[in-house]
């Protein structure tokens, strides 16, 4: 056994994390998304002036894992709560962490108007195409034909509508400084996701307006797949439906060098 020291340490808990095991299912990418945020906050030295806003959904307990102040919002209202905090504490860093049911369904009004007002917030949006916490019901982001517990025969777009592409939609709003979609299905994309999260927080730190990073994510438990097959599902089915890319990078944000 080789002792761990500064020379051979290759992986450790970021400072932005508390020493708390997560409640997430094995193979779920929430842990990856959390870690990327914690690493970025650490690298930007923002941990002690950040206030997080947790959603309702699988990540309802996100507040247990970050070593920052945190509040827990009603379902979908995180952008409104974050607005209230940021408007009275403009020198703090405020971010919401929201799933697709929270952000794209019940919280559609709050997210659209926070973006339209150009609230200087960062939103990390986890798109895993279903309601995870309640057991895998159809979400606004569920793919056509995808089976869920509330679309047991597969999502029928004739009666159940079409998936919503949030990054594209919000990018049309003038208040948005930075709005991109990334994926967490392989190491290369995870690195790109981290860079986007860094850019989003840089956008906020420089007062350049609303920033959102949509992250295509897995839900092995509710999809009924192994973690590896879930990653393949993201690559093969979700990425074509939710194309990765930069949907809005305002002129000031484009000049940020990371």
């Amino acid at each position, binding site marked *: 056994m080789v002792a761990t020291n500064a020379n051979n340490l290759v992986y450790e808990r970021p400072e932005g994390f*508390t020493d708390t095991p997560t409640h997430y299912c094995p193979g779920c990418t929430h842990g990856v998304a959390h870690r990327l945020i914690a690493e970025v906050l650490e690298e930007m030295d923002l*941990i*002690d*002036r*950040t*206030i997080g*806003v*947790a959603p309702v959904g699988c990540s*309802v307990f996100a*507040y*247990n894992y*970050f*070593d*920052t*102040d*945190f*509040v*827990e*919002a*009603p379902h979908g*209202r995180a952008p*409104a*709560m*974050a*607005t*209230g*905090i940021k*408007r*009275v*504490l403009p020198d*703090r860093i405020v971010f919401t962490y929201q799933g697709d049911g929270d952000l794209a369904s019940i919280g559609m*009004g*709050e997210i*659209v*108007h926070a973006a339209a*007002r150009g609230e200087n917030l960062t939103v990390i949006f986890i798109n895993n195409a279903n309601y995870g916490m309640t057991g895998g019901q159809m979400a606004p982001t569920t793919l056509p034909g995808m089976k869920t517990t509330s679309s047991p025969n597969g999502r029928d777009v004739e009666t159940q509508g079409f998936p919503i592409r949030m990054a594209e939609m919000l990018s049309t709003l003038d208040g948005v400084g930075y709005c991109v979609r990334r994926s967490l299905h392989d190491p290369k994309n995870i690195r790109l996701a981290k860079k986007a999260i860094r850019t989003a927080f840089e956008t906020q730190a420089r007062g350049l307006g609303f920033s959102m990073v949509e992250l295509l994510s897995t839900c092995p438990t509710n999809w009924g797949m192994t973690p590896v097959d879930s990653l393949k599902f993201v690559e093969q089915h979700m990425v074509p439906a939710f194309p990765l890319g930069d949907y809005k990078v305002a002129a000031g944000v484009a000049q940020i060098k990371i």
Partner: protein
Amino acid sequence: MPRELWKGNEAIAEASVRAGLDAYFGYPITPQTEILEYLSKRMPELGRAFVQAESELGAINMVYGAACAGVRVMSTSSSPGVSLMMEGLSYIQGTEVPAVLVNVMRGGPGLGNIAPSQADYNQAVHGGGHGDYHNIVLAPASVQEAIDLTVMSFDLAEKYRTICMVILDGSVGQMMEPAKMPEMRPMQRANWDWATDGRMGKRPRRILSSIYLDPIEEEKLNLRLLSRWKTIQRDEVRYKEYFLDDAEFVIVGFGTAGRVALSAVRQARAKGIKVGLLRPITVSPFPFEAIEQLVGRVSGFLVTEMNSGQMLEDVRLAVKGRVPVEFYGRMGGVVPFTEEILHEIERIASSKLSVDVDPREAWLERMAQAV
């Protein structure tokens, strides 16, 4: 400060500013929109936060966020908008953070109308949002009282880390009266030991949440809220008494209904009828003890409201059937005339009342005959 002519809604807005309002979030709805409009100019000129939200849901959750950050925060709305805010109220109470909400009530249910009403008494006093909680609820009857109670609402909300509601009917919000504003308080943010305002290198992290996944922990919260509420019931009951010393029977009415009743009581006194008035200022906590004190020495009560008898149930709870309780209400945005209440006073003074009569049934029968 000299007395100036103030419109109720604008007076509430200015009073909140002078009480140190740090952030306001609202949404337009009649008959309270002047508060939003007034603050849209006043707050930015003082460098304070103002946001016209996308909805009342948005507004109350912005209030929730700012309350968690530890600042003096308020929203205002009117009945249908306040219904939308009930989600946020429940969360704010579950998280034990202070906030002020003003409801300038209008006729309902549903869209109803924009005329003065007291139909949201039950919503404010007996719940509204889900879960087990109580709001402090103040009920002004004049522009001056609206100013004074708005100022007081912030202190009460912070003292008990609770929601303090100010409920007034649309007529108090819309009318103009001479009133005196308080001096401007210096803006000084409290340094609460619970606020999620960022660690800033000085302290361990804080979490504010309404989640207690373990039922035993939730029950502890329920007990904590209840214990705090019992303190509020003991220490914060406020009411005004008029002509009670020798009163043979007593009217109980809040807000505008109480104010109209006072005019009727004065006219009845001029006719030699020994009637008094008890006007609750805090409809929650309700002045049960004040009514208990009266039960032994008066022959009965008349409850007047601009609803179908919502506070009536609390008066009956206090009276416990020991003396007769009568009721007179107008609904739907109708404000009772002084003559109507005087007529009720004269009817009661000249008839023998019974504890066996259901006050609401008897009132409905009289209403049917009048129509």
